[in-house]
């Protein structure tokens, strides 16, 4: 009878271990604490494992909307020094039945960031083999930043072009006015004298073709 009682006491954990080891519905988990945290790395011990099991139970609760999952539903085995192990989730109604792989996967994916944060790790350092990480959504800008910078530069260039062109135009206008002003002064002087010759101003005289010297045809 003692043997029977002992068997009854030790059977569940043995069975549990078998459930975990042999099942197809388990996932391998791998933690790289030293890689992720460097000097702030914590020691992996039973308490950390307890935290892990409880976070997984929390994930199952959220996914299935049943508040019946407890830490005993999460079974762990194949512990290694690497800090990697396999876990399975048992059903709340029947401790011998395992929750199928797909359900567990969905639960983990939904709550991955909460599980990561509980351990201060990331998708790279807390891996669930077989569950691809859901990558964060790309940042969508209302206006692309490069268009803003482009607009600023083009605006500055446009201002520069307009300023330079206007300064050229105003310089030319000033030069014209100066030239017009000088020639007005000349006419004034000529008018004072009033003689015909001086009215020619700065011209070199009138070209009289009869007395021209550069006849092309006299090169005999």
């Amino acid at each position, binding site marked *: 009878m003692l043997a029977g009682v002992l068997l009854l006491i030790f059977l569940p954990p043995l069975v549990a271990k078998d459930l975990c080891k042999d099942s197809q519905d388990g996932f391998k988990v791998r933690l790289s604490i030293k*890689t992720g945290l460097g000097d702030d790395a914590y020691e992996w011990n039973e308490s950390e494992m307890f935290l892990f099991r409880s976070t997984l139970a929390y994930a199952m609760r959220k996914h299935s909307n049943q508040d019946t999952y407890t830490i005993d539903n999460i079974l762990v085995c194949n512990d290694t020094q690497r800090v990697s192990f396999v876990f399975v989730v048992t059903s709340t109604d029947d401790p011998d039945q395992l929750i199928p792989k797909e359900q567990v996967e969905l639960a983990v994916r939904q709550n991955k960031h909460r599980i990561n944060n509980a351990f201060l790790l990331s998708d790279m350092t807390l891996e669930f083999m077989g569950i691809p990480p859901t990558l964060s959504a790309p940042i969508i800008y209302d206006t692309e930043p*490069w268009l803003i910078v482009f607009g600023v530069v083009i605006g500055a260039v446009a201002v520069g072009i307009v300023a330079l062109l206007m300064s050229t135009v105003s310089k030319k206008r000033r030069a014209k006015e100066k030239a017009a002003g000088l020639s007005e002064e000349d006419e004034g002087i000529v008018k004072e004298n009033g003689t015909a010759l001086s009215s020619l101003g700065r011209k070199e005289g009138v070209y009289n073709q009869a007395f021209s010297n550069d006849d092309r045809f006299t090169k005999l």
Partner: protein
Amino acid sequence: MKLKLKLPNPGLDERIPSHAELEKLELEEAGERPQWDNKAQYMLTCVGFCVGLGNVWRFPYLCQSHGGGAFMIPFLILLVLEGIPLLHLEFAIGQRLRKGSVGVWRSINPYLVGVGIASMLVSFMVGMYYNTIIAWVLWYFFNSFQDPLPWSQCPVNENRTGFVSECEDSSPVDYFWYRKTLNTTPVIEDSGGLQWWIVLCLFCAWTLLWVCCLRGIETTGKAVYVTSTLPYLVLTIFLIRGLTLKGSVSGIKFLFTPDLDELLNPSTWLDAGAQVFYSFSLAFGGLISFSSYNSVHNNCEQDAVIISIINGLTSIYAAIVIYSIIGFRATERFDDCLNGNILTLMNTFDLPEGNITESSYDGFLQHLNSTVPAVFQDLQLKTCDMQTFLSQGVEGTGLAFIVFTEAITKMPISPLWSVLFFIMLFCLGLSTMFGNIEGVVVPLQDLNLLPKKWPKEVFTGLTCVVSFVTALVFVQSSGNYWLALFDGFAGSIPLLVIALCEIIAVVYVYGIDRFNNDLQFMVGHKPNIFWQVTWRFLSPIILLVILIFYFVTTVSKQLTYNVWDPDSDNFPTLKEVNYPSWISGIIFILAGIPSLSIPGVAIIRALWKHCSKDKEKNDERSISGKEASLNTIA
């Protein structure tokens, strides 16, 4: 020593201003030609023209691939024997004849106008593709104002389970360059249409250039205070940043480790000569133009030596900076590779973390190999070789837009370094473009093709608009391949031909004796034996040798190019593909037309003169005939 060999050149004295006329011009300052505000503007403009993107991304690569420190020897020798004499020649002839490139060659002999036209064509073609590179630089610059930088991580695919496959197979920087920037097609025939974002950047680049060149050297003279000095400031900042990063010293050591055997390789000397030549921006006509705005008695000999030294030192300085950053990147890659392998080992053998470190890695590998060789083979660990990572230092656009941008993403405060780096590249490129525009606009004015009374703003604006429209070729998806084509053929052989013609024209057509006298008038003393020997023999011979070698290698090699093809077997390595057959026509247009315009214009002019002489003779005969008949009547 008077030169006996001199080609006949009648009428030279009528075409050029005499010394007395130059003195008068100097005293009265009556010339219509623009002038530099001060010597510093002139020096900065010339330094800016010479120091360009090639100093940053071609010289360091050549240095590292041709034996490191040993490359300095052919580089410095050829700098002294080839670069400085040609530079002095261009400065002196511009200062003496006081015209742009077409004007100078027309003054020396009207049959040489082709040299000026060739310079103008080459300046135009090179300017077109060079500014497209600046457009790419601007694109990266605009995209640097965000954190994280867009080339630091792969974009996520539709169902957010992984990254886009093209990016996953290559790398985020490759993906951003080939897909997001260029949107490149697998072959050059596949045009792929215009990429609107690069069109905008190209428009920005040309308008920026126009605003700086609007009134010729009046505006560029002010712009160069910033564009020529900023690169040095940024290089220094990067040097300080680089030296504080891990692994930078290994990069510098790798750069300068001398391999004296490379000196026996002729291609080392050839590459050194070509680099010196292209680095000095000779034969574009821009330097002649810039020098013609100087006062007559400016010491051009001193200027040439100073600018050559600055150019050489800048190349070496830039190489140090670039390789310190490449060393950092190689070390990061090596560490990542090693850590990846260590992780694989730990995962396979379920060892606790920290069991294998970088130092115990090799020992552990050997232990594994001896105990469980089968498992070890299956692991497929990557080979992590520091030398491979260091020699991945590529050249050209690959260096700036792939290797360097990757290094920047690994530095803290990446957007700041990215902004600084691309501003530096922008300034380097823009100051070179000033010289290119000068080399196009001034000959255009000298050729009297357009009305003379049009203001300078119209000339520069027209050049910019026409160049922008033709440069849209480089904005298509296949644009990168077109650019490589232009770079390889339009900017190489024609320049060598033009430079050779320049030096022969000045020494043998203008006359080295007259040239020596001019220099004595301008500078105060006759050029010494070094200049005589290099101008008469050494520099032309070196140019001829480089030209022949270049020509032979270009003609004999297979016409292939490298493409980015996501469907190829070796992806992400670039695939080598043959050019289509019609490319030879394009190559002939690019390289042949400028080179052939030199004899072509001479022949056309000779024919025209012959025809007009015949016409004159006929006219004279008919007139004298008429006069005889008049006399008989009278």
